[in-house]
């Protein structure tokens, strides 16, 4: 490496704005029990948060609680509590941190995190969701509604049959919520909420597309987290829509000034897989020092894939919610459909390499990523790095090992760039960097 790469603290404003909005939401959750506001637990992937909002049920996201505890280095004691209660060291640690929170006295009546009034399992891809919410309903005694969303298993669009099947269940959920809140559901209110959602989706999509610029104005893996709260949790609120107005203005300003998250963008990567929340900053630094910026990521699309143009449609409220749950998110698509998503990212966002962060907890993402590496290195010739750790359990994060692999990979990539200088084609000759780091 020649000159050292420094991180610009440009993301301060977006970050702060996101944090404020998320804190307000958490505070509302903390007050919900005292104020008699019904709450509904729901999952991030392909969620129907707009519907809960329209039903006046305050959404709560156990995944967000789990990741926040990991970022604050509080996840390990919670995981251990769950393991003492019988959960296996091989089970998804998100679930263990959530159940551990209950066992530790941090969730339930009179606690900072209330029990959900209703547990809505949007079964969108991840089978662990089904187990997690069975367990959550068991400890909280709340009503469990299993919203079965058929996996995207036919080519092309979602079938009418699948859409109607999901819409039927959404209607049932509405009736259930009416029973809980005592309030009549108003479809026009849902339309208005979906209007806000579509605006936020447009904003998020625009932000992602801005990363096609050289340099990208933000890191589409590490910085996307600031937008994932507003897009996945707060979607459907006016505040979330406005958040993106502000964020886009800022990102466009950065593009105009040719500024990115680092002092220099040396490598453009696409990152696959969730981040290691317990060591977020450390992990980021391992890439930053090489001037590696993620210009796209798959994790940022778990809640929804907006950059290909899908928007919730207030004119077809329930149908468009169903379509989004069925097709327009990463988790309900096959792993090989994800290969195609990544391929498009590599090509259209002009990336130099693919980084696969393989998560022990999350088989949905990770089971078979060796095959993914094979596809990208052997069939497409995209330099690919595969590293392993965990998104919640700090015991699986080995900094020295990760550093060795990441350094070796970028060294090889740098060498390849130098030797290929002048030669045509960004992906030229084979898979040597990946091979070097296997």
């Amino acid at each position, binding site marked *: 490496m020649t000159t050292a790469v420094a991180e610009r603290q440009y993301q301060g404003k977006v970050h702060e704005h996101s944090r404020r909005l998320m804190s307000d939401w958490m505070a509302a959750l903390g007050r919900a029990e005292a104020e008699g506001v019904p709450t509904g637990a729901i999952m991030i992937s392909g969620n129907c948060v707009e519907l809960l909002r329209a039903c006046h049920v305050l959404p709560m996201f156990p995944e967000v609680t789990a990741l926040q505890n990991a970022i604050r280095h509080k996840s390990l004691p919670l995981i251990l509590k769950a393991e003492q209660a019988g959960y296996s060291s091989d089970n998804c640690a998100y679930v263990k941190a959530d159940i551990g929170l209950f066992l530790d006295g941090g969730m339930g009546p009179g606690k900072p995190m209330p029990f959900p009034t209703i547990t809505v399992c949007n079964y969108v891809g991840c*089978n*662990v969701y089904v187990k997690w919410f069975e367990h959550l309903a068991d400890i909280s005694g709340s009503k469990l509604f299993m919203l079965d969303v058929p996996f995207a*298993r036919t080519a092309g669009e979602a079938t009418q049959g699948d859409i109607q099947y999901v819409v039927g269940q959404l209607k049932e959920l509405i009736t259930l919520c009416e029973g809980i809140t005592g309030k009549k559901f108003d479809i026009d209110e849902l339309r208005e909420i979906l209007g806000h959602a579509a605006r936020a989706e447009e904003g998020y999509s625009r932000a992602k597309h801005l990363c096609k610029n050289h340099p990208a104005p933000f890191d589409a893996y590490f910085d996307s987290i600031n937008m994932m709260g507003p897009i996945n949790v707060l979607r459907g609120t006016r505040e979330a829509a406005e958040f993106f107005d502000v964020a886009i203005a800022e990102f466009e300003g950065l593009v105009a000034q040719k500024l990115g998250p680092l002092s220099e963008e040396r490598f453009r990567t696409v990152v696959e897989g969730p981040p290691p929340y317990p060591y977020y900053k450390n992990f980021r630094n391992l890439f930053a020092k090489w001037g590696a910026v993620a210009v796209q990521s798959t994790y940022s699309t778990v809640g929804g894939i907006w950059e290909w143009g899908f928007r919730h449609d207030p004119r077809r409220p329930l149908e468009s919610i169903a379509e989004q749950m069925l097709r327009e998110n990463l988790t309900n698509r096959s792993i090989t459909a994800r290969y195609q998503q990544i391929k498009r990212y590599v090509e259209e966002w002009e990336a130099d390499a693919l980084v696969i962060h*393989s998560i022990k907890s999350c*088989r*949905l993402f990770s089971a*078979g990523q*060796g095959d993914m590496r094979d596809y990208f290195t052997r069939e497409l010739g995209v330099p690919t790095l595969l590293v392993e750790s965990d998104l919640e359990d700090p015991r699986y994060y080995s900094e020295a090992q990760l550093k060795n692999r990441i350094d070796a990979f970028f060294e090889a990539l740098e060498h390849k760039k130098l030797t290929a200088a002048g030669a045509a084609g960004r992906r030229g000759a084979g898979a040597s960097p990946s091979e070097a780091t296997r």
Partner: protein
Amino acid sequence: MTPDRVLDHCRELVNQPLGAVAERWKALHLGGRAVASYPVWAPAEIIHAAGMLPLALLGGGTSVELTHADARFQSFVCSIAKSSLELGFQDIVKGIDGFVFSNICDVARNLGSIWKRNFPDAFVEYLHLPQNSTSPGVPVYAANEFRRLAAAFEPAFGLKVSEAALTHSIETYNALRARIRALYAFRIAEPQKLSTVDLYVVLRALTLTPPEAAIGWLDELLTGLPRRDARPRDRLRVVVEGAFCEQPPLGLLEVFEEAGCYVVEDDFLLGWRWFTDDVATDGDPFDRLGAAYVNQSVPSSVRHEARQHRAEGLIEKVRRAKAQAVIFTPAKFCEPALFDYVLMKQGLERAGIPHMIVEFEEKMWTFERTRNEIETFVESMLFE
């Protein structure tokens, strides 16, 4: 055939490579096709109704060395997913024309797509089996999913599933399942006359046999086994729960008995005895299968059942089999089994039913520690 002859036949069958079984059947059925389903359940009736041989893709056990598949699936993924894929890479499933996967877990789902990518010439179908068990639209959805599977056979193999053929296949599989239920009931009554290993081998063999033939030798077993001469011993009656997907090594099954247990219920090869009673035989057959999936499925870790707590099905099994304890046997890294273990064990504890846990892997070959653990458990129960 005497029971011993039937058992010898079954043992011989289960030692054969899956592809060879398919090839042999196809040699006798010109133009025939074979379709194998990954655990836990797929509607074999539909495959059968298309005139094909339904088989089970159950991994490689101890029979294959991983040379390719461990580069595709990480170390923290269960063994059956890897060894099944390896069977593909090593051509051991050559002769099988199609594979059916379903949404039992995240690993199996990804395996289905990776199978398709690596073996593009094979027919691969993925079924989304509903996890919602109570909404009014679910039976219709399930029926349509089964229709979709049937329809996919036409472009792939030029084979149609007629209503009449499916009705006939449902009747055939009803007859097969009734006999398996009878065999299980027999074991509950006289476990000394049918060992766990033998029962497992029988089940395994019938995943490799056309149902008509299997019905024949199950009848012979049901007639012959009661005549066996065996005295009941003082053993602990246990239910074994958790090995519903990755297959337990035979050595492990032997250890249960050697260590002092009668296994009187289990969830081995659940997919071949999936319905608690006969699927109805009148009306549209796809609708009947859809309704049966929703209302007559056995309790299973891979299906959410809103009408029953996770532990209830297991507790019922314990009571029905007059068992004294439960041995949990999750496969290593098997998320559905490992998650359910917690709710199930809590339920057992509330009901005062003792339990222990033994994790296994299909490729496990030493059982000394397991034997000691089970022996200690049995002793604590029998002599307390």
